[in-house]
Every structure is written in structure tokens, then in C-alpha cells.
């Protein structure tokens, strides 16, 4: 009987430990206060981009630059845990233009950039 109690005790302890660790192990999936910026299509000349937000702040501002010249800008609201694809007007850049195109996005004081060098 003693041994059975020890076995049951071990099982209960392991279950409690593992259930807790399972819950804890998923915490990173909801890590807060960051966001990511990426091109929808990394290989083509298309400049459409995606913002994926894990921050509680939701008001993003974006700009499209050709080298240092601002071509367009806008604001977008994205809730925490959501992502949004931003489709730019004339986003398909002709390969005749030999320039660097930059997407600059800011949220509060943090700014990120992604860019494509378009070559002839």
C-alpha cells in the first residue's frame, strides 16, 4: 500500500509539474511589445508590405521613399496580435528605375526600414 501511495504521489507531482510547464512553455508565443515589418513578396519588385503587431500601441505611420525622396505616406491602425498587408499605389516598380526603394514604418519612437534595390 505504501508503494502504491509513492507511485500515486509521483504521478500527481509529475502531472502538476508538466501541466504547469506546458502552460509556461507557450508564454513566448504571446511575448509583448514588439512588431515586425516585411515585404509581401521578397523576390519581386513589388513593394507591398506587411506589419505584424504584438505591441499594445496600434497607430503606425509609414512612408515610401525613393532613395531619400518621399513618394507617399500614410497611417494605419493594427491591433495587438494582428497583421495587415499594406498595398501601395504603383507598388510594382519598373526595372527601368535604378533606385533604392525604402519602406519606413514607425510606431511611437521606434522606426524600422526594409528596402529593395531595383537594378536595370
Amino acid at each position, binding site marked *: 500500500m505504501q508503494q502504491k501511495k509513492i507511485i500515486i*504521489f*509521483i504521478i500527481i507531482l509529475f*502531472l502538476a509539474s508538466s501541466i504547469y*510547464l506546458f502552460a509556461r*512553455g507557450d508564454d513566448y508565443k504571446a511575448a509583448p511589445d514588439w512588431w515586425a515589418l516585411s515585404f509581401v513578396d521578397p523576390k519581386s519588385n513589388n513593394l507591398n508590405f506587411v506589419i505584424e503587431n504584438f505591441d499594445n500601441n496600434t497607430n503606425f505611420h509609414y512612408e515610401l521613399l525613393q532613395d531619400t525622396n518621399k513618394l507617399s505616406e500614410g497611417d494605419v491602425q493594427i491591433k495587438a496580435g494582428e497583421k495587415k498587408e499594406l498595398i501601395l499605389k504603383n507598388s510594382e516598380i519598373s526595372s527601368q528605375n535604378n533606385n533604392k526603394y525604402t519602406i519606413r514604418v514607425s510606431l511611437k519612437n521606434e522606426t524600422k526600414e*526594409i528596402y529593395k*534595390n531595383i537594378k536595370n
Partner: protein
Amino acid sequence: MLQYMFNQITFYIALGLVLFVPGYALLLAIFGQRKILSNLERFIISFGLSLISVDFIYFSFSGLHISITRLSTFLGILFFSFICFAIYKFRTSSNVEKENSLFDFSKNQFVLILLLLFLTIFIKTAYLSDTVFPTATDMGHHMYWAKWMVENHQLPTYESMPDFIIGEHLIFGAIALLSGADFFSAFPVIILLLINLLGILTVFIFTLRIFKNKTIATLTLLFLGVLYAIASPQAKFVSGGVIGNIMGNFLMPLAFYFYYRAFEFLESASMPDKNSKTFLALAIFTTFGLFYTHHLTAFIFLFIFALLVIIFLAVNFKNFKEILTKIFHIAFSPQVLSVFVIGLIFFFFIFTPNYFKTSAVDTAVGAPSKDTRVGLTIANLRSSIGEARLALGFIGLLILSSRFKKRSFGYTIIFAWTAMIFIMSTLPNVLFINLPSNRIGNYLSYPVAILSAYALYFVFRSKSKTQEESFIVSSNLLKIGFTIILAFVLVDGISDSTLAFKNQSDLRPLAQTFNASEYLGKNLTDSDMVLKDHNYITADSWIKLFFMRGYKYPLSRGYFKRYEDTTKPREMCTLTMISAPNSNDARACFAQTSTNFIIVNPQFDSAQFKKSKDFNQIYSNPEINIYYRTN
């Protein structure tokens, strides 16, 4: 919530099916309900035998060209268990043995055992709560192969790499197949935690059987479970995914347990009975399991076993003939021979471990080739095992030697286990061993924990009945000295654990690595090649699980010192393509490797890419930038 609960329940059912049912059924088939094993032993051993049985079930699948799926895994385990159960029902074994009083604990012992178990699991869980995340490099490498098995429905081929052994991955693959558990969850760490606990429990029952003393066994739980519960090779190895070592430290004591039970009769100079043959068959079965699980542990086991045989036969030289006759009697029995022959057939003809086919054995033997292999100093051992535990273990070894029972196979196992690992880790030259000494030294904590318990018991036990037993501890001064040592051990052992606790982890870098990997995984085509950095990216070894295009995909810039290691010259492209991507060497490397995506940490490797018009930055988060090479 319901889905989460359902996932949890399926995980525990799969865990039971893979890690308990086959072993329990096998024990039923062999021993029926006989009391030759206590309930606690049956429970602990079932896990070890399940682990090995599942390996052999999968090897049979491989031999029979049966695809490894959820259904075939389920049916295979069920079929094996059903056959065992049918044998159990068919055999009419009489239950004549009485329950062994060895496992009847006093109330105080019972409470102490529960307390030590609670502390063991509590301390490990507390540590793992901040290290359970999928970040460890080794774990990432191992889980790649487990996932590969799940996705490809066959046993991993390891691309001819000898460092991976099949038994390290099968149970993870089996549980993932049956339960659908996510490899990016805590499940691999939880499985390793369970195996780690079972290793400690195996040492507990092994010690109890050898010394026939409940206090020594209980103290072993203190020295192996509670004290130094975090240090390597305990919880740190669990979170670090050092699978082979954790499994080895379960299977090796289990093998020793079976060998001890098989040759226990030598202590009383009686004749072996049929149980001896059965236990020897189980010992051989477990030894094969060990060889299928971890080559380093198997290698160490062979050396220990050789020393064990030499010592035992040397101290019993006068009874050499009598002992050999008895050993031959059980070794050449049908049950032992059949397990041995079947094991050999599997090993050489059905599924041969990768390390056996390659040069791994050759590289393990010879003059040390790196300064990490020239042997540990006593200072190294102190930090590896714990200063107090090492001191107490050494005293235990002296006491054991002074009270050595020539006929005790158990004493000889403990002695050989300690002595051989000590020699292998401190004086590898003597045995021509060319393996990292610290990896071998980690194994020493297990026998040293037993010896520490033995030493402590020997000094503090109540007045002995015989003069011969009491002379060493007659002095009260000695007891006071040992009280101080005990306090030192407790403080040292617990403080070792508290030092290991991390501050609250920042989980964002992990989430950011996985987010970037997921993005890139969706955009890759067959012709793309990715290069990532190992130095500054969190959990980078897990990135390959998002791509599943080969163990060496993506390419990796390794630790900088490795490129300077003169003992192992290596390619330089992975270094150059990140560190100097615009150099002529790098251009040649890009052309040679077809690398067109590079994953780096922007805080360390960004400027060199921004300068070049050959790279587009296509992804950005605080920890990861991804660049796409256009030329």
C-alpha cells in the same frame, strides 16, 4: 480552452502508451504477478523497458518496410502489448513469493521519501519554468530528427552523421505522432524531465537492492534528486536537450540493476535460479537499448563492465572456477541466448546504429586530440559534481573499500562505476580515450551520490550490533565532524541550485526568431539557400524545423573560435558570407553555395549588408533582419 484540455489529455494518453504500457506488458509476460519485483520496481522498470520496446517495434517496422504513421505506431504498440498480455494469460505462474519487506518503509522513512520526491520535482520544475522554451541548441538539433521521422514516416537516416543515435529520437517522434504535440511546445522538455526522474528512481531501487538498507536508498534520493538538482547532468541537461546523457543515466543504472539481480545469487554462494536467467536476459535487452540510444554512455558502460568483471574475478580468484561455472550456467540458458541472438540480428542486420557504421568508434579511441580531452583536474571535478558531494563520495568509496564484500556483485558495480568514470575523465591517456573529458565527468555524479549516501549513513547510523561495524564511528568527534560536513553538503547542494536560477527571461527574441523563420519558410522555393548566424540569434538551431529541408539547411555561421580551431580545419564560406559579404571571397562563396537569403541579428550584422546594392532587406524585427541577395 476545450482544445487545450483535449491536447493535454491526448498527450498523457500517448505518453502512457509509449512509455509505460509496452514495458508493463512485457514484465507481466515475464514475471506475471509474482512478487519478485515490488510494485515500485515494476512501475519504474516499465518505463525503461517501454523505451527499449518501442525502439525495437520501430526497427521491426523498418525491416518490414512498414510506414511509420499514427495508426501503425498505435497498432504496433498495441500488438506488442497484446502478445505480452496473451503470454501472461497463457502462463499459469504461481504466486508463491511473499512481498519483499525491503520495500516496507517505516512511517518516518515514508514521509521522508515523499518529501524528497516533492523537493526533487519542485526544484527542477521551478528551474525549468524559465528554461522550458524551445531555445536550446542541442534540443533543436534532436527535434529536427524527431520531426523528420513524423513527416517522412520512416526512421531518420541522419545524412550519415554519427553524432545522432536513433534511440534519442524515437520516443519523441512516437509521442508527437500519437498526440499531435507541437515540437515548439514544452513537450520535449517534459519527456526529458520524466526520464531524468526515472533515472533517479532507478538509482533509488538499485541502491536499496544492493545495500538492503532503506536509509541509504533514501539518502541517495537526497544526494541525487534534491541536492545539485539543477547542475549538469540534472535539470540543466533536461532544458538543454542533452537527450543521450539523460537517457543514458536512466538506462545504464537500469542495466546495472538487472545485472545485479541476475548475479545476486553469488553473494550467498547459492545456485542460480530461473530468475537469474530472466534478469540476465533483461540486462542484455537493456544493454542493447543503451547501445541504440547513446554511444557515449554505451562506451562508458563497456569500460565499467570490463573493470567490474576484472575486479570481481580478481577478488574471488580462489572461487574462480565455481563462479565461472555458475555464470556459464545462466549465460547459456535459452532465455539469455535468445535475447542476445535476437539483439545481435537487429543490431547488425535490421537496424545498425549510425555510429557503428562510421568512424565514430575510431575517433573515440586514441590519443587526445584537443585540450578539452586531456583529462579533468580535481578542481574541474569539484565544480562538475559539487565540492561537498565529491568529498563525501570519496569518503564513501574509502569506507566501501574497507568493508568490501568479496562476493558482493553490487559493491563491485558501485566501485567499478565510480573508479572507471573517474579514470576515464581524469586520466584519459591511460585508457587511450579521445573524448571530451567533461562529458564523461558528468556521469560521475550518479555513483558518487550513492557513495555519499553510504558514507553519511555509515557515520550517523544508530549503534551497531557488532564490534566490527562500529569501530569506525566510535568517536563522537567524528560525528560532529560529519555534522559539519552534512551542513556543508546541504548548503553547497542547495546554493548550487539557487545560483542556477535565471532572472525572468525575455521571451521576445525567441518569438522574433520564430516569426522571421515562419515568414521565410513561406517564401522559400526549392532553389533558395539560406544562411543564418549562430552567434547572435536566439534559438537559431530551431530555425531548420520551419524549413525541414535537411539537417544542414540552413547553412550556419558557427562560433567564431571554431573557424580558428587548428585541430579541425573547416570551410570559411559561412563566416565570410556574413562577416564580409561584399568581398571577392564571399562572392565566390555565394556562387558556390547558391545562398540568397541571410538571417542575422541587426545589432551585430547589419551595416555590411546595408552598404551593398546586392542585398535587399526584406524583413525586420528587433532581433532579426533578413536580407535577400539579388545577384
